[in-house]
């Protein structure tokens, strides 16, 4: 079969896939989930989940040229014209998040195999990967949809799947059930607040399509129903993304979840909720109006600053590493919220860039902890002793990600913090710059604490007598090391060439603030 023939064959499939990529991005993992329930023979379920997530990633890549070419894509479900049917609207903002979520899905799957085999019993593995795929589909669904109520439905799919995945950590730590239950109660309250918000929006505008709502409530930003809707959506999504005062469920949920779930959630779950809030605040409500302006300055910015400082301090006192990283995630989320609450194009772009970089950092950190727990049974900071000697490559990647979290030059963290400070200075928010500095310095302490124990202490002698005898060193295959090194390298690469995420973030910010839902 000559090349031309092959190409001739592939081209139509490619164009077909290209035009129908938007629904396929969500439907492939959604329908692959139920199939995964039956494949519980050894690694079949894992291979199936990996293949599907790679396919999803390919579909997202197919979307990229179209979005970059003509600004945004609109796809009508069942060819019903928007106000009637559900519409998928993809612009550079959700393309960035789609790239992130699908890439992290692939990476955590590739990374997660030895961890899953170590922590989840054989019979439940098929269902575990099914729940994972459904969670991935839910997150992608929230990111890609252009319909307000559809966001709620897919938010619920991803949330219920996340509650279940978190509770799967119970084989390793019995407190996982309680953590999952608290997460469920807080998550459902958040979702219900979000539904109230969408209901009020529907009451004010009469439609559920985001672009249409924006058009109808454009003039009425002083209407009380619209204001109440804004408040409820912000609180609802704030709960989902663990905004500062509503974050109590996150540390124990991430600490008790299985390590692979921790890796995936840390870099995607709260980010998608953050994206939803950005989408609603800027595309649906009119950011310029005095009410939203007041909320930005009086509610979001102080919450962001409080998150940055208080959660960094809390992270300092944590013994369990995953709780420490969870608290630092909430602090880093404060950075993104700070960018958002500036309301300027530079601010929002900086926030989105930090979102992208933070996913890289936190993903790598959780992977490092996962691999270490596989070999040395690491749960507390003390157990990291001597990791520098026993597992040099993991320790090195962990260090790179840690430094990136602090914002040391040569790492991506520096770039996003740099742009955040520039945006804050332009906005004249001195106190925000001070908060950024204080929390970076606090980051030095709690990351420094971990790095010091890793490099300067002697590794625990693996003797049977030790109470927390680490499991026999399971074959941590190269498979697990690959993604970890890739993430660490990405952290460095995006310092030198931050054009991809920065370009997308800028385009997204302009699209959002330029002319409403352009």
């Amino acid at each position, binding site marked *: 079969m000559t090349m031309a023939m092959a190409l001739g064959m592939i081209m139509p499939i490619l164009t077909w896939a290209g035009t*129908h990529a938007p*629904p396929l991005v969500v439907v492939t993992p959604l329908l692959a989930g139920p199939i995964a*329930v*039956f494949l519980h023979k050894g690694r079949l379920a894992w291979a199936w989940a990996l293949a599907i997530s790679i396919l999803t990633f390919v579909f997202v890549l197919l979307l990229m040229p179209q979005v970059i070419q003509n600004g945004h894509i609109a796809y009508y*479900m069942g060819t019903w014209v928007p106000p009637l049917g559900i519409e998928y609207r993809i612009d550079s903002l959700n393309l960035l998040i789609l790239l992130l979520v699908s890439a992290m899905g692939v990476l955590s799957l590739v990374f997660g195999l030895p961890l899953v085999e170590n922590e989840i019993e054989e019979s439940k593995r098929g269902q575990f990967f099914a729940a994972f795929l459904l969670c991935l589909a839910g997150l992608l669904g929230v990111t890609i949809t252009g319909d307000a*109520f559809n966001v709620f439905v897919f938010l619920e799919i991803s949330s219920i799947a996340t509650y279940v995945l978190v509770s799967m950590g119970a084989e390793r730590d019995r407190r996982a059930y309680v953590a999952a239950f608290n997460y469920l109660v807080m998550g459902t309250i958040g979702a219900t607040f979000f539904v109230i918000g969408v209901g009020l929006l529907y009451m*004010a505008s*009469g439609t559920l399509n985001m672009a249409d709502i924006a058009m109808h409530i454009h003039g009425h930003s002083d*209407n009380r129903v619209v204001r*109440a809707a804004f408040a409820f959506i912000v609180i609802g999504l704030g709960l989902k993304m663990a905004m500062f005062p509503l974050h109590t469920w996150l540390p124990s949920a991430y600490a008790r979840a299985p390590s692979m779930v921790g890796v995936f959630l840390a870099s995607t779950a709260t980010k998608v909720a953050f994206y939803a809030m950005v989408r609603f605040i800027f595309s649906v409500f009119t950011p310029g109006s005095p009410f939203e302006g007041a909320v930005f300055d009086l509610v979001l910015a102080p919450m962001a600053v409080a998150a940055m400082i208080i959660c960094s301090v809390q992270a300092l006192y944590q013994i369990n590493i995953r709780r420490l990283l969870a608290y630092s995630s909430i602090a880093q989320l404060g950075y993104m919220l700070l960018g958002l609450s500036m309301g300027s194009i530079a601010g929002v772009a900086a926030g989105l860039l930090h979102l992208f970089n933070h996913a890289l950092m936190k993903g790598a950190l959780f992977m490092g902890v996962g691999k270490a727990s596989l070999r040395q049974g690491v749960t507390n900071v003390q157990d990291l002793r001597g990791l520098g000697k026993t597992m040099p490559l993991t320790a090195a990647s962990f260090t790179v990600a840690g430094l990136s979290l602090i914002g040391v030059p040569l790492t991506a963290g520096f770039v996003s913090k740099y742009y955040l400070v520039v945006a804050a200075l332009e906005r004249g928010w001195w106190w925000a710059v001070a908060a950024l500095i204080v929390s970076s310095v606090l980051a030095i302490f709690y990351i420094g604490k971990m790095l010091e124990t890793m490099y300067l202490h002697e590794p625990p002698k693996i003797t049977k007598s030790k109470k927390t005898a680490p499991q026999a060193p399971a074959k941590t295959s190269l498979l697990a090391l690959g993604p970890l090194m890739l993430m660490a390298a990405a952290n460095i690469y995006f310092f030198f060439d931050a054009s991809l995420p920065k370009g997308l973030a800028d385009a997204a910010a302009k699209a959002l603030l330029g002319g409403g839902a352009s």
Partner: protein
Amino acid sequence: MNADFITPLDAFTIIDLILMLMLLIVGLAIVRLNDIFAIVMLAGVYSLVSALWFVSLDAVDVAFTEAAVGAGISTVLMLGAMLLSSRTALPAKPVRKWASFFIVLATGAALMYAVTDMPSFGDPLSAPNAYVGLEYLKRSLPDTEIPNVVSSVLASYRGYDTLGETSVILTAGLGVMLILGMGGKINGQLKKKAIDYDNADAQAHHTVLRVVSKMMIPLIVLYGFYVQFHGDFGPGGGFQAGVIIASAVILYALIFGVDAAKAAVPPLVVRIGAALGVLIYGGTGIAGLILGSNYLDYNVLDPHSAPHGQELGIMSIEIGVLITVCSVMLVIFYGFTSRQPDITDKDW
């Protein structure tokens, strides 16, 4: 906002007032009570009364679902969970009461603040009622030849939402399967039978129930299918039908014992059913895709007449929903009954 519409007071408002009063009383009672058995029952009553209210608000489909799913299945699940856990709740500590009271007051105030700008009740020209809703009413029949506009919007116009919803149910079923297991081994050893349902004494004890239920169960299943296929013309559809058929099987399990029910509807079939329903639904969508149109477009299903294609599409996805809902409800029920201890008569 159409400010000048004045809601007329007529007989229906009086019924609404009574129902609202009952709802408030039940709500307050749940707050004050600590006996979980009473709370669960009151929750069931709350759902039923709100279902009544939905009927008077012309939301017949929602009333049906609320009664079947909200009052029926939720109460059964709550009772199941309650019997496997403790019976009375500790009263909340005062400091927590006051803290939550203020939080609730704040959210309530935010909502009350918004009430003034809300369209008055029943206003035909308010934003929601006069825009897309009206458009659906006009286009539903010509487009899909299905009188029940709710079913057509549910399945066709906003079919993607319902796909999401079916996957939500599947995720819940998957979750219960993962958390509670399906009655196979529980931490290692097979669950011993608490009550041997086949011995003579048990037989005698349940004869009346067994006879009546033998008669009723086929009727319930038949009624379930009626609701499923009648969904296009009147209130009904995949969800309600699925729940009804599941409740028939649950009734069978309660009377004739879980093992008998597992023999009749084996867990494997139920597990496959849960996945199959979503696949049918998704598959219909992909069929539209393969036939060259957008995802979930039923017009292309029947080449020569679009509305007929819509009807075909809606029919198939309703079947998908039926299978998933029915199997997931059974998965959840098997999950609960698989945990120790078995529901002995003494606890009823």
